């Protein structure tokens, strides 16, 4: 058993990655085993063509949507182990249950243990950033001896597994049996040392090999399927997104921070080895280019491997290194006493470790690029605050919590908004991995490439306009592909406003972003072709839709994507949601989108009648609820209702049959009669009915007058606003409407007119300046309607002048009195 060395790691922990590289350097194993699905063994050969972050994608050949990802970042110990093996010409193999088993599990693939045992130890020691605990506490004591460190991890895990014995389920036991089988096989294959890189949690289970027959019994009879897979590009963003989900392997909440820790430690180690100048420069370049360019990571690692060969020469330097570290060890050793002095330890500013200053320098650059005022002085203050916080919390150096708190208080002025930027761009980061051309593609990606070729649609990274004529098959298929890809989170094309182009034309703006490769990779779990994946995603969204608008959206997308299965699912969802909906605004709100779908449906090969029936159903339900929905609502609710009412009216005109249009008009008429209906919808209903020739001018004028006289107060002005809102152009151009309003106004008595004036002012105030000018010109052009002309009233003018004089006089006298 001594031939086998178990390196227990924290998945995606840069500290563990350092330990693994150092231990492998010391051990020089002949075989490296890495926790992971054995079906991926052939894929290790492609390592040279990969730039992390990347992920293994394995899928069931019979059902490609049954798939799982195993992501790797540059700082993942598993990745470093694979790289070490490749660089030293040693075989690397995966050890775990086959993916064929995990993919078949009822609750989906969960390739890794949910428990983070080293994180638990860190937490117990009072650290909420496990990687800083590793650096400050574990490595400070052990760095000189990675194998001793691995041994200490094993010991700790043995104790921890006893404490958490009930976390060890059958599944874990089966997985560990499979790992032991792989260890046995490796020992048969070589006489030399074997290294096993696995989650720390499993180390105690692999420390002793029971009879092979016992393990064979544990894994016997497990489901078998044909599994194939490939490497796909990944991103820091995806890594972070997966950190919450149990499904696709443990992710990391802060990949950007971990990458920063990994790079900083590598730079430190390189500096300690004496190639200051060379690596320092390299490191600076790395920071400058980090966000854009993933390749520099490899540069770092290569330098690292290169140094490994020279290790013996560096023995002296190494002991120097150990000495300085001993100097530091006093700090965490005395723990809080040393740091409780309130005065910061100056740790972050100490020579040699620029992890924290460099972090804030990057944060400042980022914020400055967004035009937020942060100076270099602020970066210094942030470092000091982070140090003070770490001291206050009894931690030897600032962790993610401390740098985040300091960024908030010093760089962001307490404002969460810029902090979110720091989180997205720095803590998570935007690093993208790449996969070389020789690496096989996922079925979905292959389908996409084939479709692109067939449709002659190249994936250019420049922005391009695309005009499509939907009567041509190739163009129609292009539009459909772009839409299906949008469903799969690949916004290669952005649809432009199509209204003015007519039914058969579409305009797109297309731009391929290398980051889309990640979304394409992720979409591979939904299906083996773009069509089947999009259909599945839409089907799921339809099934999950809770509101009418959602279902209508899905229906629209399904029709546009020409996916009949999804259309049927969305249609069913729409019925279900409409039946459950009690909110009229919600029902009416879905109509415009649906009307659009009805109009374009014919072009898209969907039976228009099917869609029209859906629209009629919604319209009828909305019409029933409308009068009630207008009653007893506040202004904000009335605004929402008005928007929904307008949209529904237009939709009805556009896509409903005459019978249903009549139903809608009846609903509007009932709004007029509804007691205490809000003025806004009531005014609007009045105008729409006048436009529809249901009400004549006299009836409208009567209603206007009644509204104004009956409800002195806000109701009246709402009615006038509802009637006139958005009609400036109409008013100026349509002699009928103009005449109607004109007639109403001139028909008012002088008193009524005076009462109405403020309401009118308020309604007209909603028009833009240009609209008001246009209206003014229109009124002027009409030569002023008779009777309403501004006749000069001498008596009134005299009274007014007297009043003004009186006012001026009093103001003058009080002013004089004060002086």
């Amino acid at each position, binding site marked *: 058993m001594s031939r086998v060395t178990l390196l227990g790691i924290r998945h995606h922990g840069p500290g563990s990655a350092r330990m693994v590289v150092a231990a492998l350097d010391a051990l020089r194993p002949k075989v490296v085993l890495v926790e992971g699905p054995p079906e991926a063994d052939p894929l290790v050969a492609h390592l040279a063509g990969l730039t992390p972050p990347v992920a293994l994608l394995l899928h069931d050949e019979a059902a490609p949507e049954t798939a799982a990802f195993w992501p790797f970042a540059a700082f993942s110990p598993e990745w470093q182990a694979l790289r070490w093996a490749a660089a030293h010409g040693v075989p690397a193999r995966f050890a775990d249950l086959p993916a064929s088993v995990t993919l078949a599990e009822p609750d989906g693939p969960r390739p890794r243990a949910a428990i983070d045992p080293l994180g638990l130890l860190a937490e117990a020691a009072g650290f909420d950033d496990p990687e800083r605990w590793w650096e400050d506490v574990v490595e400070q004591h052990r760095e000189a001896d990675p194998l001793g460190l691995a041994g200490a991890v094993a010991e700790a895990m043995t104790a921890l597994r006893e404490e958490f014995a009930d976390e060890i389920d059958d599944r874990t036991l089966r997985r560990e049996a499979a790992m032991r089988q792989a260890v046995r096989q490796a020992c048969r294959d070589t006489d030399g040392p074997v290294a096993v890189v696995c989650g720390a949690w499993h180390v105690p289970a692999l420390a002793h090999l029971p009879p092979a027959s016992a393990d064979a019994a544990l894994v016997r009879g497990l489901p078998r399927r044909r599994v194939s897979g490939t490497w796909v590009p990944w991103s820091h963003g995806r890594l972070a997104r997966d950190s919450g989900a149990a499904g696709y392997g443990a992710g990391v909440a802060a990949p950007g921070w971990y990458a920063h820790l990994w790079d900083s430690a590598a730079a430190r180690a390189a500096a300690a080895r004496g190639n200051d100048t060379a690596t320092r420069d390299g490191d600076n370049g790395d920071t400058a280019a980090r966000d854009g360019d993933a390749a520099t990571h490899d540069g770092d690692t290569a330098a690292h491997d290169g140094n490994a060969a020279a290790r013996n020469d560096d023995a002296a330097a190494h002991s120097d290194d150990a000495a300085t570290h001993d100097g530091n060890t006093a700090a965490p050793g005395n723990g*809080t*006493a040393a740091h*409780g*002095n*309130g*005065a*910061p330890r100056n740790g972050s500013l100490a020579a040699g470790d620029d992890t924290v200053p460099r972090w804030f320098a990057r944060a400042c650059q980022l914020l400055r690029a967004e035009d937020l*005022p942060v*100076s270099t*002085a*602020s970066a210094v*203050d942030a470092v*000091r*605050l982070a*140090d*003070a*916080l770490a*001291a*206050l*919390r009894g931690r030897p150096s600032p962790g993610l*919590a401390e740098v985040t*708190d*300091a960024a*908030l*208080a*010093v760089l*962001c*002025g*307490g*404002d*969460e908004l810029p902090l979110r930027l720091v989180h997205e761009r720095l803590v998570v980061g935007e690093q993208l991995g790449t996969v070389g051309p020789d690496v096989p593609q996922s079925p979905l990606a292959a389908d996409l490439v084939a479709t692109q070729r067939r449709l002659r649609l190249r994936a250019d990274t420049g922005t391009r306009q695309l005009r499509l004529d939907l009567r041509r098959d190739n163009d129609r298929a292009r539009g459909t592909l772009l839409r299906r890809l949008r469903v799969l989170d690949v916004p290669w094309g952005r649809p432009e406003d199509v209204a003015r182009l007519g039914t058969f034309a579409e305009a797109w703006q297309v731009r391929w972003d290398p980051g889309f490769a990640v979304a394409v990779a992720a979409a591979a779990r939904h299906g083996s072709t773009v069509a089947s994946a999009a259909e599945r995603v839409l089907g799921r969204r339809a099934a999950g839709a809770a509101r009418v608008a959602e279902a209508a959206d899905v229906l629209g997308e399904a029709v546009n994507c020409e996916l009949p299965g999804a259309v049927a699912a969305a249609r069913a969802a729409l019925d279900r949601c409409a039946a459950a909906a009690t909110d009229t605004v919600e029902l009416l709100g879905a109509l415009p989108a649906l009307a659009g779908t009805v109009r374009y449906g014919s072009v898209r090969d969907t039976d228009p009648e099917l869609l029209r029936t859906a629209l009629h159903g919604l319209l009828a339900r909305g019409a029933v609820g409308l009068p009630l929905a207008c009653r007893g609502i*506040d202004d*904000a*609710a009335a605004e929402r209702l008005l928007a929904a009412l307008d949209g529904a009216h237009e939709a009805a005109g556009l896509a409903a049959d005459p019978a249903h249009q009549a139903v809608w008009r009846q609903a509007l008429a009932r709004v007029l009669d509804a007691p205490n209906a809000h003025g806004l919808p009531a005014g609007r209903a009045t105008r729409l009915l006048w436009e529809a020739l249901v009400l004549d001018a006299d009836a409208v004028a009567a209603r206007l007058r009644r509204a104004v006289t009956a409800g002195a107060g806000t109701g009246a002005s709402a009615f006038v606003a509802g009637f006139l809102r958005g009609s400036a152009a109409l008013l100026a151009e349509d002699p009928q409407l103009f005449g109607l309003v004109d007639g109403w106004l001139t028909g008012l008595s002088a008193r009524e007119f005076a009462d109405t004036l403020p309401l009118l002012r308020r309604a007209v105030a909603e028009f833009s300046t240009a609209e008001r000018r246009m209206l003014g010109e229109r009124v002027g052009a009409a030569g002023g309607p008779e009777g309403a002309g501004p006749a000069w009233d001498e008596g009134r003018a005299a009274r007014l002048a007297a009043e003004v004089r009186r006012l001026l006089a009093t103001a003058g006298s009080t002013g004089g009195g004060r002086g």
Partner: protein
Amino acid sequence: MTIDGIGVLRAPAEQQYAAELAALAAADDRPRPPNWRLSPQAVVTYVLGGTLPDGTVLAPKYVGDRRLVEIAVATLVTDRALLLVGVPGTAKSWLSEHLAAAVSGDSTLMVQGTAGTSEESVRYGWNYARLIAEGPSEAALVPSPVLRAMRTGAVARVEELTRMPAEVQDSFITILSEKALPVPELGQQVQAVPGFTVIATANDRDRGVNQMSSALARRFNTVVLPPPATEDAEVAIVSARAAQLGRALELPAEPPALDEVRRVVRIFRELRNGSTVDGRTQLKRPSGSLSTAEAISVVTGGMALAAHFGDGRIGADELAAGLAGAVVRDRVSDDAAWREYLETVVRERAEWRDLYQACRDVPTGGA
């Protein structure tokens, strides 16, 4: 706001909590920054409350995120100035006072910012009788609280910084960056003693009125104090503070029943958010800030009523007047909002019938 009214009855925090501070200091074996009365850790414990090894129980002063208090204390450790901002009634002044009391043992070195705050009250003034008799001299100088804090290495407090005229605000720039204050009349410069720093508070709603210059803003670490995140947290704050205040006022009333406090807090939160807890009903928002501080004064006001005119137990009748007073700040619009809330929400809650009756009977002066 109303709490401030009883401020005259209230001793500064370092006197009120002298016993706690003494016990903490005795048990505190961690290093203290120069001129600090306690270690930073002990300051955090004082503010957030806890139990000492000898069994002394420390009352929580600020109820909220530990992280924020740690940022504030760590800021003071680095002798950076601290700016507490937030909407009204989020304990900015309260936290500032307790931090100053714990760090320096003196929370009274305070400048109140108003539109009329002069530079003298930030820097120094003169005793003119002496100035004329003796000429400029140390004895004729009247130091501002800030100058006294600089000399003793203490925390100076600035309340409502953004209400001061901009040029007065800017006199802090030199003080904070140079940690020195020139007195040209005496041809000398006062150097701040270690331990000197500034805690300023500013109201969110004032931002933009007399907005700080960026040069000044850069000299502060900023901590935003949020309103209580949940109803439970707010209930805890209100009932704890009301009970404390009741004791301080020696009200012969029982501490308020949790259910009553919860009703007040719910009403405040619903009106503040403009919708009911279940999210079903949209509400008009009154113009007032309806802060936690005001919820506290509604409850303490109710306790006073109960003590002097009732059976000592707080109930719907005792709360009604205070509630209407806190909500209705603008006669017309707020009254409409309050009436609407009473009719559409309070009335519908069966277990709130008593409150509905009581509130309906309170005149609010609206139409």
